[in-house]
């Protein structure tokens, strides 16, 4: 294998991907949006048939650092293109926020095999922590983010016992019940603003006010660029941690528990310990990013965190491929951006969107980019060259 051709392949595909994202975000008319969707679908099918996607997959795996760096540059370039556009930056930031939340959920669902249908509740716990803390106290907002994560973890501890004692469908029911409970609780709580919601202060870090735009060489830059950049950093950090967890002995333990709990216990693994670990790490990420989301929107209400929103998070993971980090990132983009782009077809948009998702899962039952088999010696591919 030729390393130059690997780098070239990665560069070209990231460039094309970035261009596609830019074109998609710019597309306004029905024709433009629909033809871009068709273009993406057709080219994916063709490339899959020709084996190009498999080849690219191994290229990305063999030069991981370069690939991640290029994708990061692609994301930054997209932000530069839309620097003046509030709405598009808001959408892109929302995608990053959901990526972090779903990566958290992925540790629970994808690695440890714990179904959690209360993702939106933990996301909301962080959000409400941010609402109370920013409105009532003068705590620095970075601390608020961390506390948001901790609150989600603490709320999660309430569920640990029932979740550990139940399995499969029963565990799912426990989390569903909690998700409904959470919403009812915030709805009747006057401290949290009740059903009408609560305002949240915009983010300020070390005097860097996220809600202020800039002027660079006479060009107005949207204030959302602050949120986008910060969310990009959070995403990169979460991505790194989740990757490390996945590849470490921690991830190995979680995988083993997911695949066969009884066998793992027989080999002396402490099943409860790894489940609690996965649950805690996942909730922490969801809480942090929930707090960030609340600060960006400046307003939260119970309706943001319904059972339906938890289902959206679970469906992102299923669509992307359970346990697959890049799959989740791709799926989040589709699930967040596509319904918005389909606003032009009004009341039928969710019908079309759901049909699309069903079609994808029909032809790719393991998700868009299913998780590859564990490489016990990452980088071996390159070493063996």
């Amino acid at each position, binding site marked *: 294998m030729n390393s130059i051709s690997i780098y070239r392949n990665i560069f070209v595909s990231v460039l094309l991907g970035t261009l596609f994202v830019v074109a998609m975000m710019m597309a306004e008319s029905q024709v433009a949006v629909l033809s871009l969707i068709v273009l993406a679908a057709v080219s994916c099918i063709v490339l899959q048939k020709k084996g190009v996607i498999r080849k690219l997959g191994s290229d990305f795996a063999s030069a991981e650092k370069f690939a991640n760096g290029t994708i990061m540059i692609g994301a930054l370039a997209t932000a530069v293109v839309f620097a003046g556009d509030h709405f598009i930056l808001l959408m892109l930031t929302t995608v990053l926020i959901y990526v972090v939340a779903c990566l958290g959920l992925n540790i629970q669902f994808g690695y440890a095999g714990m179904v959690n249908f209360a993702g939106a509740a933990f996301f909301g716990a962080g959000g409400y922590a941010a609402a109370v803390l920013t409105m009532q106290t003068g705590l620095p907002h970075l601390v608020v983010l961390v506390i948001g994560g901790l609150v989600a973890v603490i709320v999660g501890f309430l569920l640990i016992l029932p979740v550990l004692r139940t399995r499969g469908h029963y565990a799912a029911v426990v989390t569903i019940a909690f998700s409904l409970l959470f919403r009812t609780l915030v709805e009747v709580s006057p401290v949290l603003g009740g059903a*009408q919601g609560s305002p949240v202060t915009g983010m300020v870090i070390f005097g860097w006010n996220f809600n202020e735009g800039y002027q660079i060489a006479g060009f107005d830059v949207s204030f959302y660029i602050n949120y986008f950049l910060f969310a990009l950093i959070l995403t990169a950090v979460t991505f790194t941690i989740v990757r490390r967890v996945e590849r470490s002995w921690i991830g190995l333990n979680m995988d083993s528990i997911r695949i066969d709990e009884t066998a793992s216990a027989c080999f002396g693994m402490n099943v409860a310990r790894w489940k609690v670990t996965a649950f805690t790490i996942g909730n922490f990420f969801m809480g942090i990013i929930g707090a960030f989301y609340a600060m960006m929107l400046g307003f939260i209400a119970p309706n943001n965190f319904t059972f339906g929103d938890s289902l959206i998070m679970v469906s992102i993971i299923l669509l992307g491929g359970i346990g697959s980090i890049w799959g989740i990132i791709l799926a989040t983009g589709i699930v967040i951006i596509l319904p918005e782009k389909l606003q032009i077809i009004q009341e039928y948009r969710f019908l079309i969107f759901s049909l699309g998702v069903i079609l994808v899962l029909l032809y790719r039952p393991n998700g868009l980019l299913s998780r590859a088999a564990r490489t016990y010696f990452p980088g071996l591919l390159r070493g063996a060259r």
Partner: protein
Amino acid sequence: MKQIFRIASILALGALAVTATNGMANAKDKVTVGYIGPITGKVSAHGIAGRNSADLAINLRNQDPNSKYEYELVALDDECKPNIGIQVATKMATDKHVSGAVTHFCSAVATGAVRIYHQFHLPVVVWGAISPSVTYGNDYKEIHRTIGTLTSQNKVAVDFLTGLGYKKYVVIYDTTDYGKGHLEAFANDLLATDGELLEAYGVAADQQDFTAELTKAKSLNPEVIYFAGLSDLGIRVRNQMEKLGIEAQFAGVSGIISDTFIDGTTASEGSLAMRQGAPVEVMPGGPEFIKKYADADYKDPAEAYGVYAYAAMNVLLDAVEEAGPDRQAITKALNTMPAKEYSIGMVEFDDHGQNVNSLVTPLVVQDGAWVTWDESEYASGKRTLKGK
């Protein structure tokens, strides 16, 4: 042959007329206005009805030869979710082509989104959300609302009850935002009259026994027990009043209006309540709206609130006609708009952009049904309320 000639000439004339009108239409400047409502999700029936009604207002305006602009509608879906609401509000407000918008059915969505409109200076008329905080929770000049707020019925209630000659009141309210909001508004409005609020008792929304509160209330000897809460709680309060032999007139907020209230109480006869809004049939422009909506042949019914979206859009279009497509000019025109009659009744904004003339209709239970006060036998003097 002659016939063919005649048909051909009619067709030619028709074609000419079409091109001419097209030419005229093109001569008008295009103005884009927006609509936001829950087009999908649980309350989509209202969102779709609102969109169709807003669309109807625009189509009728475009057919009007006297209108200065040609209007175009951009409709977006907020799913009745605050986060999506903020998203689409940002989309609409940052779209430079949009001059103004008619927005939101759900209160929590509207409360969250008003900040965005203010931030990007988009003038909006809220058509369906009724939480007081949408207009009174801020000082944003861009925000207006044609529909009445949740608490505006209390003003009517106070005027109505004091008009009947009642002077001494006890309020029983549930301790949610709903009950508390009503209590505050009622107490505040009562100050301006010769009525007196003896005491207000807060109760939990699921409380079963009110003996303590009602016994204390009885000793105060009120003329009216005003109840602020929903019907299931209202049923229990009304029944226990009867049990304790309290001879005060019972009056409630709109939340108690339902058939279960009548079925569940032993003594519902003569209970009063304020209905928020009015049936579209009895609105000043209601029948006309119903006819035009039917003529336009929309697939979905206009629902109870369609007429509000229609009126809100007309208010916005009138402001554009007067001030032109510039956002700041429209905001100013809306803020200084003189009182004018629309299909839902008079529209006149106060300094928070709230329409001060909201439609509230007093109702009374007569023979096991809610009857409009003016049509009841109580108003005509055939029957009498408690203490009269």
